[in-house]
């Protein structure tokens, strides 16, 4: 089925599901062509939600993590999760039990894991500042990608926050706290491009003397040409997430920054990015003490074309294959929106 070519200026959101939770939901993956979600939680568990029914069915996987489940990916028939406990776990989707656990997959906290669209490999990223490739099915190590600095310019530990894999599974992008982005060739681990979004890293040298921010989200465009980068602009009072939500887009192979979106009404971190399958618009979701969803048309170089307040700070969001549904998880909530166009 061809994705609907929604006209950006006519985007309309309709809240379809709003499920309250006591925990903080950190990560989400969706089974193809379904309303079934896998959600990683602050209670250290992985949950299976089916939003198709009126009363969503919730199934907990066996407790196997010892910290927040920060990433979940579906690689073919395998489910992979990661957490602050440094573990990568391959799960049996049917029994909801772990099949293969790598106890110290990284030396420090694991921030995310993503499966390649072809299902052949999984990328994990951790605060040891290494991206690691693993066989999608068995979990055997394939390759390590090293290039991010372990320390910030101000002598504090850096963090590797975000990764994305291109739709053709050929390229991997990783991004860190200081706003450095590296695009790698998946086949041999070669560094292809280094990009900068330094505006997303705030170091306060005087008032509070620590930092906030960093690149928190990445997404390749469907044609693989563009790389979108999400975070937060410079922050005055770093006690709070009060910087403007910020998205920058690169034509990454030429290292040209084509778009900067920072003039919007929302403050906080852009935690998740996804292009419409047609490439016609880009969704950005995140928040401060509340949440937002924004939409950008690459033809409109500076401003979002639609802003929507979310009922919670969104930690992760994903679009379905046809670009007409958004699934978001975050602070105490799971939300589904229907995305549609209306006549201009």
């Amino acid at each position, binding site marked *: 089925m061809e994705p609907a070519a929604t006209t950006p200026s006519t985007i309309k959101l309709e809240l379809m599901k709003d499920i309250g939770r*006591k*925990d*903080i939901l950190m990560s989400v993956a969706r089974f193809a062509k379904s309303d079934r979600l896998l959600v990683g939680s*602050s*209670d*250290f568990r992985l949950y299976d939600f089916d939003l198709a029914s009126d009363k969503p069915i919730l199934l907990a996987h066996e407790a196997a993590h*010892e*910290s*927040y489940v*920060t990433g979940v990916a579906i690689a073919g028939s395998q489910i992979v999760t990661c*957490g*602050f*406990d440094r573990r990568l776990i391959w799960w049996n989707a049917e029994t909801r039990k772990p099949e293969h656990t790598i106890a110290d997959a990284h030396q420090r*906290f694991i921030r995310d894991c993503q499966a390649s669209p072809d299902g052949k490999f999984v990328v994990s990223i951790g*605060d040891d500042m290494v991206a690691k490739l693993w066989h999608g099915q068995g979990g055997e190590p394939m390759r390590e990608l090293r290039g991010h600095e372990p320390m910030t310019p*101000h*002598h*504090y*530990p850096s*963090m590797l926050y975000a990764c994305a894999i291109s739709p053709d599974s050929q390229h991997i992008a990783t991004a860190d706290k200081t706003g450095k982005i590296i695009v790698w060739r998946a086949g041999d681990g070669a560094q292809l491009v280094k990009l900068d979004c330094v505006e997303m890293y705030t170091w306060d040298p*005087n*008032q*509070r*003397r*620590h*930092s*906030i921010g*960093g690149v928190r989200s990445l997404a390749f465009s469907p044609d693989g040409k563009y790389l979108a980068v999400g975070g937060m602009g410079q922050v005055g009072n770093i*006690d*709070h*997430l*009060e910087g403007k939500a910020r998205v920058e887009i690169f034509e990454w192979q030429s290292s040209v920054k084509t778009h900067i979106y920072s003039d919007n009404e929302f403050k*906080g971190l852009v935690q998740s990015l996804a292009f419409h399958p047609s490439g016609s618009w880009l969704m950005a979701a995140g*928040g*401060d*003490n*509340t949440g937002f969803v924004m939409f950008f048309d690459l033809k409109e170089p500076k401003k979002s074309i639609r802003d929507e307040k979310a009922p*919670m*700070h969104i930690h992760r969001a994903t679009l379905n294959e046809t670009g007409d549904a958004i699934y978001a998880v975050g*602070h*105490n909530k799971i939300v589904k929106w229907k995305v549609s166009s209306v006549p201009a």
Partner: protein
Amino acid sequence: MMRKIPAFCGSPDHPGFGRSSEIHRRSFIAGTAAATATAFAADMGGVDCFAQPSYADELKRDQKRVILLWLAGGASQLETWDPKPGRATGGPFRSIATSVPGVRISELMPKMAANLHRHTAILRSLNTRNGDHGGASELMLRGRRDDATLHYPDLGAMIARELGRADSSVPDYVAFYSETEGRRSSLQGPGFLGSRYAPIQLFEDPIPADLRRLEEITDVDHQDRERLRRLLSDRFVRNRGSNTVNSHNTAYDRVRGLMSSEHLFDIEREPQQVRDLYGPTRFGQQCLVARRLVEAGVPFVRVARAWWDSHGQNFETHLELVTELDHVMNVLLDDLQQRGLLEHTLVITVGEFGRTPQINASLGRDHFASAWSCSLSGCGIKPGAVYGASDPDGLTVVDGEMGAGDLFATIFHAVGLDPEKEYHVGARPVPLADPGTRIIQDVLA
């Protein structure tokens, strides 16, 4: 009950007179002449002096010192000394075993965990009931709330007064606070003890401004001028006899001492290897200066590390700041021990409050004073001791509830001071620690 030791009042007739903690040498000099006439009226006049120098000297012979690592803004107890892994309030970090069997702390503190048995006691049951930065800072720096009629001194001023040496050429109280946020709240001052016990405050500059002799005056000139001033002053005193003039002369004596202490603030004089150990951060460098200062006999040094007020992104903030604290605190304690100083130096690590167990929507933690933690290391402390407990979610104290006054009484006792020792402000007796507070014996050696 311990005997009460009358206060060493700082009068010109007793050791300690003339100590000053004016920030700048020139302002010190200029201020002293005018101040001496009024100092006792303004600062000390209200304090009745039951001074008995023998007691004071007895205390000071021990050469006890205190370093306060002031975690301004409020560090999270859950990400440091009192983790709650696996609870809804616990956050993402795990706990790790320490070198003390059965005691676990946050995994962000691996170095302190490995050495907990050597130097440090943890107190997990502070309930200080004040979640406002200003009021809580006042409480945790003075050990009690101010009252309408009396402005109490802060811990540094009391330690400076009790442990400072009259014949010392170094400052009695040095305070670092480089960040601007929360700085005003940290300026609690000497209260009724008077400005002589105010700290040398260091903000942006690592070395006190104007401490250095002016380049256009040679050291010989400077000493000659002092001799001339002394000659004239002595002649003046012979004819009149005056405590005020004695005060004036002692203050000038002190200036030379303060000027000669400039090198203590210069970490370039430390071997590169030692500087590397403390690391490149400003907090690390200031802790190295603190070690140099206590090594030279400065009785109280406060190093503030601001700003921990992580309403948003608590875990990212603590990843940065606790990692730094763990490293620097561990190096400082090791360094003090290797130099034979830790036995006589108490290191206090505390802020104005802790942080809420509840995690807010920005993944932050807010102000929380109901069940939080601090640590004491070194002098007089039982290493590896853990006192008090919070409930499984960290919401309330369930064992050993203590307040700021109890912490202060314990601090005083650890450095050999009687918490019940009294100052007299007019006719009013004022003990070092707030009346009704208790010493936490479980953490004392």
